[in-house]
């Protein structure tokens, strides 16, 4: 095997011994380069396999031996197809030929799950990168094989744990409502039937009990809404934001009227989104602009700006603003910056916003200074590439 004695300085090109050193005794000067090349390939944390134009393995490293369970002597000189799962094996030579016809570096089997066949027939999930390597002996292909078994397993565990959490939140919310309603009903029935016979203290206690129950009900409703972002989302489809914004302002009609707010907007684009969730997002953000208003009547502007493949939508207000040290905290569930006496709320609204935006593959952030209003910006994917 004359190949891979040395590696040329220029990228992928590996020169054979003869071309690089035309002298009569080429080996000694090349030895350091060869050792370096072998050391790099050998110590790679990924499996590295080089095959020739006929699909014969001419070089493998230690990780390849570990991944596939073969000793390198069992691999070198054999066809690469021995590492391909049985059901793909008949088609593999054609796939190789296609790659060889127009070789360029790329991941193999884009978008599909790839498997490698181990000694004894077991299969392992892998990711494979292919790089053509030109030599005087023809084009070789360098395949880099990554064992993604552990990653797959971690992803699967994460998915299961997320699903369980969302199911738990949903069920807990539903089942928690029932006893809570009972408590509220009977405390209220006490006050309804026995008001005349109770003194002021007793009525205070009843009010505290009812207040606590109401707060718990709001928390549960919001928790339910939070869990629904993941479990009840509609597909992401082209969505016209002008009508979503109109619907949002209709929903907020009473609050807008009451606060004397003025809302303006840029021309709104069409984005790829779940219309219901974007409406919820805008309702929460514009609702916050009204809720955290300053002395002046609220002025809210909804902006739109195209940035690459995304649209960036912003909601700017002239309200009380937020100190920079709280910028991250406000997006965390149940985090609040004000007492309940100052502002009502459960601290779930912006967490829902964040979850919605992230489900769309976007980001959300805030720019603000205390007393100088706030600008919340989120990104959503645009329709055209």
């Amino acid at each position, binding site marked *: 095997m004359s190949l891979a004695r040395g590696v040329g300085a220029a990228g992928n090109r590996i020169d054979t011994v003869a071309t690089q050193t035309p002298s009569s005794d080429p080996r000694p000067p090349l030895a350091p380069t060869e050792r370096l090349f072998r050391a790099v390939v050998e110590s790679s944390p990924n499996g590295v396999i080089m095959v020739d134009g006929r699909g014969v393995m001419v070089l493998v490293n230690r990780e390849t031996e570990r991944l596939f369970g073969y000793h390198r002597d069992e691999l070198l000189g054999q066809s690469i197809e021995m590492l391909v799962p049985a059901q793909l094996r008949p088609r593999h030579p054609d796939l190789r030929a296609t790659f060889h016809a127009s070789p360029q570096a790329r991941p193999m089997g884009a978008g599909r799950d790839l498997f490698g066949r181990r000694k004894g027939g077991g299969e392992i999930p892998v990711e494979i990168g292919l790089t053509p390597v030109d030599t005087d002996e023809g084009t070789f292909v360098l395949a880099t094989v990554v064992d993604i078994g552990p990653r797959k397993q971690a992803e699967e565990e994460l998915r299961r744990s997320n699903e369980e959490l969302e199911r738990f939140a949903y069920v807990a919310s539903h089942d928690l*409502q*029932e006893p809570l*309603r*009972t408590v*509220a*009903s*009977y405390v*209220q*029935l006490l006050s*309804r039937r026995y008001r005349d016979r109770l003194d002021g203290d007793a009525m205070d206690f009843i009010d505290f009990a009812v207040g606590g129950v109401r707060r718990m*009900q709001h928390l549960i409703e919001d928790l339910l809404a939070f869990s629904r972002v993941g479990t009840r989302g509609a597909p992401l489809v082209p969505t016209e934001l002008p009508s979503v914004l109109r619907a949002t302002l209709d929903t907020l009609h009473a609050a807008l009227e009451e606060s004397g707010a003025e809302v303006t907007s840029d021309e709104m684009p069409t984005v790829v989104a779940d219309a219901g969730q974007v409406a919820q997002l805008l309702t929460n953000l514009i609702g916050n602009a009204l809720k955290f208003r300053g002395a002046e009547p609220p002025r809210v502007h909804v902006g739109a700006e195209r940035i690459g493949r995304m649209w960036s939508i912003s909601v700017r207000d002239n309200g009380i603003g937020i100190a920079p040290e709280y910028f991250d905290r406000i997006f965390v569930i149940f985090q609040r910056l004000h007492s309940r006496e100052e502002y009502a709320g459960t601290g779930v609204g912006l967490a829902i916003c964040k979850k919605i935006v992230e489900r769309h593959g976007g980001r959300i952030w805030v720019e603000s200074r205390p007393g100088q209003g706030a600008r919340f910006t989120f990104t959503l994917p645009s329709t055209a590439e």
Partner: protein
Amino acid sequence: MTVSMGIAAAPIEILLVEDNPADVRLTVEALKEARVRNRLRVARDGVEAMAMLRSDSAPRPDLILLDLNLPRKDGREVLQEIKQDETLRHIPVVILTTSQAEQDILQCYRLRANAFVTKPVEIDQFFQVVRSMEQFWLEVVKLARP
């Protein structure tokens, strides 16, 4: 005068199908404030409800208040059986539930429920709802009494 005396002579029979004793009592308390004389009987689950409806000794109810989530046989099955039964399907069934889920509402009307009512959270509203039901079903409309 004669009409109201007629009603007074034969109290309205209501069957409440509800497994939560707290909710049963709440409905009882609300109906106590009712103007129309009524007799309320309670079934704690779907199986008991169907047994009472098909029993020869128990009186046929004039109105059925039906919860959806019940042990053994749930409200949807009870509703379906009532509306498929020649001798029961004329009895108005009002679904009285905590659910506000759209698929529950649609499914119940498809199964021929006569009304779908979500139990309000506030007790004053709950009493108001029971009073409205009572007024509509027991005073406004004429019920069939075969």
